[in-house]
């Protein structure tokens, strides 16, 4: 298994993986142009995993200068329970720390108990005291 930086070359394969991943909600922010802009803003912080000549895992990470954010961690169902998700996340956290980021956040469906369990098992904490408010700001 090899982990490599996510470049736009693997976009199509990653989208296939995300479409099959429960818990990954795709939106307009996942278009090729949007992902390209995201990777340019956060170079070397997103990764994919390859095994048996197949793309089997991917994760996006980036930061706003204050907090890191991880999005769309996905591992192909046949390749789970081998530590692959954790390795992908570790690569993100190292890259974020290298630019001085000390805390990382992610958003997760409250009903995704398997996902929450995974993140808790690798040191993450669900924050129930602080809520998230959101606004769509497309005016077109």
């Amino acid at each position, binding site marked *: 298994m090899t982990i490599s930086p996510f470049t736009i070359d693997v976009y199509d394969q990653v989208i296939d993986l995300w479409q099959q991943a429960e818990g990954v909600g795709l939106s307009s*922010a996942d278009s090729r142009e949007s992902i390209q*802009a995201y990777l340019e803003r956060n170079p070397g912080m997103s990764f994919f995993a390859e095994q048996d000549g197949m793309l089997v895992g991917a994760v996006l990470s*980036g930061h706003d200068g204050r907090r890191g*954010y991880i999005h769309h961690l996905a591992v192909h169902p046949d390749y789970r329970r081998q530590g692959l998700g954790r390795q992908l996340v570790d690569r993100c956290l190292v890259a974020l720390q290298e630019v001085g980021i000390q805390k990382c956040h992610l*958003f997760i469906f409250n009903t995704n108990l398997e996902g929450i369990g995974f993140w808790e098992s690798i040191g993450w904490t669900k924050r129930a005291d*602080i809520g*998230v*408010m*959101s*606004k769509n700001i497309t005016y077109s």
Partner: protein
Amino acid sequence: MDDYDSAVTLWQNTEGVVLTDTDEREPMRRFLDRNPGLSSVALVGDKLIGTILCSHDGRRGYLHHLAVDKRCRRLGIGSALVQRSLSLLTKEGIVKCNIFIIEENEAGIAFWEHNGFNLLEHFGWMQRVMV
């Protein structure tokens, strides 16, 4: 960065703004460098009476530390700071903006709802502290 000292004084006197290591001078400089032109202050004469920090990770916008001097509230300054930030984010190609808020802060939640934000019911968030 010239406004830093006045901004910290305002934040220290604003309920709902929680200061952390990230609000020290050097991290704040890095934050402003990462998001040039996105954060705003409100001035009366040369006195700083309002702030908002605005940022994005290339995917979602984030607003932090919205604060207005107690003597200058209910004049729409907070909303003006928010609207200005959202407009700047759309120019950067960002289509969704998030804020984090203490769930017990009912006045704060009402303010953000008035400005078109909705509390996410189905989503939570998780955090990892790296150091």
